[in-house]
């Protein structure tokens, strides 16, 4: 286990079940604030479920049951008084398929700051929208068509729009669930470049099926298998010299 100076998020013995089925089994991990952390593992290993536990996205699934403990900056996010809407602003999420609102590009980004009351007046909102789009590397491509619908953008642009939308509410952590699996290689490269630029500003956690992607974008990697976290460490160690045989078999293509 890697110990970080001051973890952004800390999970202890997190178990998530869907009905009788245990999807995540007693996972303890520290998520650093200054690095990109990737979760890898075969389908059904629990990595996405665990990711969704980090901002209580599983709450929306009626059969899902959570046990354990997750802290954000030392604060228990599963306590009863926790404002879940506020939590999801602090811990933003980007999904596998780009899901822009069927509204203008501007509105897609402005929506969050507006409902969270982050902007006073139109000028400040404009500033937030521009800054977020710039940070997501999309500004130059959309600045002349902010009124167009978000759905008119290409897949890669839509995904960057979703990242801009997540950024606009000033999150501390960004969770990405296979953000490039629906994108072509160029759009993927742009997202990876963007992740690298955002690193340090936000704690980033990415679930990916592409081991090369995990190796490229992250500094910490956790390998999940059958609901357990098998190994967690520096990405360079995991991919050149993993400690666990199961990790090695998976990343070298010998799994199963």
């Amino acid at each position, binding site marked *: 286990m890697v110990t970080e100076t001051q973890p952004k998020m800390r999970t202890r013995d997190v178990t998530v079940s869907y009905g009788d089925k245990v999807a995540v089994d007693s996972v303890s991990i520290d998520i650093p604030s200054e690095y990109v952390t990737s979760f890898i593992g075969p389908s059904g290993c629990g990595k996405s479920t665990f990711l969704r536990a980090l901002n209580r996205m599983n709450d929306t699934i009626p059969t899902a049951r959570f046990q354990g403990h997750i802290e954000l900056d030392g604060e228990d996010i599963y306590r009863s008084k926790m404002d879940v809407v506020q939590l999801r602003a602090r811990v933003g999420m980007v999904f596998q398929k780009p899901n822009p609102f069927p509204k203008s590009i501007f509105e897609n980004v402005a929506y969050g700051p507006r409902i969270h009351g982050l902007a006073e007046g139109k000028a400040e909102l404009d500033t937030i929208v521009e800054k977020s789009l710039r940070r997501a590397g999309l500004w130059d491509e959309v600045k002349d068509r902010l009124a167009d619908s978000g759905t008119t953008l290409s897949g890669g642009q839509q995904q960057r729009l979703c990242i801009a939308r997540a950024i606009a509410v000033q999150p501390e952590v960004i969770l990405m669930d296979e953000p490039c699996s629906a994108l072509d290689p160029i759009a993927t490269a742009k997202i990876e470049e963007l992740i690298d630029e955002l690193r340090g500003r936000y704690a980033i956690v990415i679930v990916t099926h592409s*081991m090369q992607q995990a190796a490229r974008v992250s500094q910490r990697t956790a390998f999940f298998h059958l609901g357990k976290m098998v190994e967690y460490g520096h990405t360079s160690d995991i991919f*050149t*010299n*993993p400690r666990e045989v199961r990790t*090695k078999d998976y*990343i*070298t*293509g*010998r799994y199963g």
Partner: protein
Amino acid sequence: MQEHTVKAFDEDITRLRGLIAEMGGLAEVAIEEAMRALVSGDEDLAASVVERDKKLDVLEAEVDALAIRIIALRAPMADDLREIIAALKIGGVVERIGDYAKNIAKRVGSIEGRKRFEPLTLIPAMADVAAEMVHDVLTAFAARDPVLAREVIERDEKVDAFYDSIFRNLVSYMVENPATISSAAQLLFVARNLERIGDHATNVAEMVHFAALGTLPPDR
């Protein structure tokens, strides 16, 4: 070791390991025959050692091409990646070992009065140690055996000790019999070549250790 889901990956790696083993075998024979030619003055044998070195160059190019192909097509990870990088480097080093053997063979015709030279009994003994290092280090690669690799590294001291002793021996020879300087200088180069072969076998051993464990051996 468990097989890859993609069978062709295993075939590629097996072929790469086979090429390295073949190179190792050729290099070992080259050292032995160059030495036999040196001691007996057999210039035909020496010429055949020089000729067969070309085969090593061809095999090295094959190792390079295959390793690059595997990296490009399979994006190997972990021990696979280490093994392929090690093979790539070992191929280059074994080719160099072959060059040293060839260089020894080329000097065979330049040694005069070989019966008089006492160092000529030391040099084959030194060559035996060096050739055995080459043999054992390739066995270690084939068996992915870091313990044997470390053992080979330790043996390099023996080769170095031989070199020092032969060096002193030849220098005093040259001082006492200036007429032998030309031949003695040739033998000095031979000993030097053998010493380099020992160093290169040590480099291979380090790569074997790296491929097996992901770390270089301690106390290099």
